[in-house]
């Protein structure tokens, strides 16, 4: 177990964190701005992966990566118009139940469209090799995952904190009635935020697909880690999503190095500890 081993594990932890960040950021953005718990997020992620795999099969990986977020955003648009909009004011319990049901509906729709067999999605040629980093060979695609995660973080941060739209969103979060009085169309704002959140889920699906496997139950399996990330980090904040992802990624990776027999328990212990000491998570959103 020399230095290269530890560098490798460090990269593994970073890579897993970034993947989780991509997954959880859409969920946390929707929650933070709309106070809407969208448990179907995992199903949207699976849908993104399926779209990416289908398109990549005929038009190549990059087209798939581009189309998948758009397709999932369109699906989000449909869901919003027909379901979410009328659920906006109906309280968290009803929202959780509806979106939980949506998971299974979407899961079966995925089955009906694509069948039960796993789909193939290979890493694109240009990213299929390995990159040497201080004598440690690490898969290029995993660097790409980190890059996409970081880019999403930087862009979202810029939009939310430095642009006028960001200011409007923040105003809507702090006090939506006052924001509406000031002439901001809060409904439309939230609607576009919801679509962006869905698109992020689709992007995560497309990015994760070549690394993991494209099977119908993938959305269900990813839901728990995603929820853990945003509960640890604090619901609704960008800072919380990145902090939660890093904590999960590092605990999971180094947990499986030092105490493999406890690998699946450590993260739950941490979750329990955080819920006891800081019930709102590490960096909860200020608004609301």
């Amino acid at each position, binding site marked *: 177990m020399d230095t290269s081993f530890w560098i490798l594990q460090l990269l593994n932890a970073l890579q897993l964190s970034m993947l989780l960040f991509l997954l959880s950021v859409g969920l946390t953005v929707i929650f933070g701005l709309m106070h809407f718990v969208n448990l179907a997020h995992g199903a949207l992620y699976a849908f993104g992966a399926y779209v990416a795999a289908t398109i990549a099969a005929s038009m190549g990986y990059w087209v798939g990566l581009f189309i998948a977020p758009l397709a999932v955003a369109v699906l989000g648009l449909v869901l919003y118009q027909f379901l979410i909009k009328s659920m906006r004011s109906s309280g968290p319990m009803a929202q959780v139940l509806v979106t939980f049901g949506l998971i299974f509906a979407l899961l079966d729709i995925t089955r009906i469209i694509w069948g039960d067999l796993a789909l193939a999605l290979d890493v694109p040629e240009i990213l299929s090799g390995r990159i040497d980093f201080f004598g440690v060979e690490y898969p290029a695609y995993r660097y790409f995952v980190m890059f996409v995660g970081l880019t999403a973080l930087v862009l979202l941060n810029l939009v939310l904190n430095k642009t006028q739209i960001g200011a409007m969103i923040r105003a809507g979060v702090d006090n939506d009635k006052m924001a509406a009085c000031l002439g901001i169309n809060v409904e439309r704002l939230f609607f576009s935020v919801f679509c962006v959140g869905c698109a992020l889920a689709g992007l995560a699906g497309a990015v994760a697909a070549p690394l*993991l496997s494209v099977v119908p139950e993938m959305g269900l399996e990813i839901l728990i880690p995603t929820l853990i990330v945003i509960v640890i980090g604090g619901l609704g904040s960008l800072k919380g999503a990145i902090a939660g992802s890093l904590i999960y990624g590092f605990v999971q990776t180094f947990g499986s190095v030092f105490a493999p027999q406890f690998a699946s328990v450590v993260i739950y212990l941490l979750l329990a500890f955080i819920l006891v000491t800081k019930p709102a998570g590490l960096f909860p959103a200020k608004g609301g």
Partner: protein
Amino acid sequence: MKKTAMISALTAGILSASMANAEPTKIGVLLPFSGVYAALGKEIDAGFALGMEEFGAGLDIEYVREDSEADPGKSVAKARKLVLQDKVDVMTGLVSSAVAGALRDFVHGAKVPLLITNAGDNSVTGDKCSPYISRFSFSNGQINRPMGTWMAQNGIKKVYTLAPDYTAGREMIEGFTGTFEAAGGEIVGGEYTPFRKTKDFGPYLAKAKASGADAVYSFYAGGEAIAFVKQYDSFGLGEGMPLYGSGFLTSPLYVNAEGDAAVGVTTVLHYAPTIDNELNKAFVQKFQSMNDGRSPSEFAVAGYDAAQALALAIKGGATDRASIAQAISKVSFSGPRGMVSIDAKTNNIVQPLYVYETVKNGDKLTQKVVAQLPSEQDPAGNCSL
């Protein structure tokens, strides 16, 4: 008076006998048609249907299909329905070992023959065997034990093992390590990864790499297998440390989703679609024509052979639950995977095993059979039938 009573008793007897003949043999098929094992359930069902069509032609058979959802609780309810309400004569199916474990006592108590088509838990035909439960797929230990000896004989000295942390994972790995060490091999390390919770195998692969092993031996199935094989390849581990394992790692059912990452992986299993015998060729051809050109997998062959065994039993005169159970325990025939029989000591299948390498043939992935290992009986343990 006495005479009429006798005559009426006789006619009643004749009537009931002819009624029994007129009544079809009811087969309850209990497979996961939804849930995580849906692909496997459908594959087994396709194999079973093909087998019945071929060997059961002319037999009076009625199916009752139920979705187990691979859920032990729901499966018990469905099995009760099949046995008590539908009054099936025989049951077949089961993918998950957890379901097999949950059903065992009920099936044993109800005295309904059950032909298992996947669930590989050793105890089903070991310590908790039953004269009513037979298995046409494999036991976890059975498929891995001969591979330990074979790998040691082929010059592999140090092995690192990886498998998911649940019963099947442990039984598969223990089956392998026992014979591998007995043949002079050394296990330099190993890890059981959290079952269905591990998305990123990176941390474990880094450990395997640092272990200095000649090869990695592993068992994963389904989505986990796809992710594992792809990630193993992406780290470039295959170059210095080839990947071996039980054949579920590169099952023909989902090997295409693994793509080129699966090339060069050598695995052992009771079936590969490229086994060279006439019966298998015919089976593969028929299966392909019914399934859009897709080759059958080890799951399909288990269903197919279970159907053949059941058809043989019914043709041999077995009509009710008891006689079917008895006939199944004695069955033996040649099938796509070679000569198979049911072990009278445990009711588990006895079958040859095949070591195969996944290779690329043009654009397609296929299985190159490297060696055939002799069939072996499982240790009976505390089982007495």
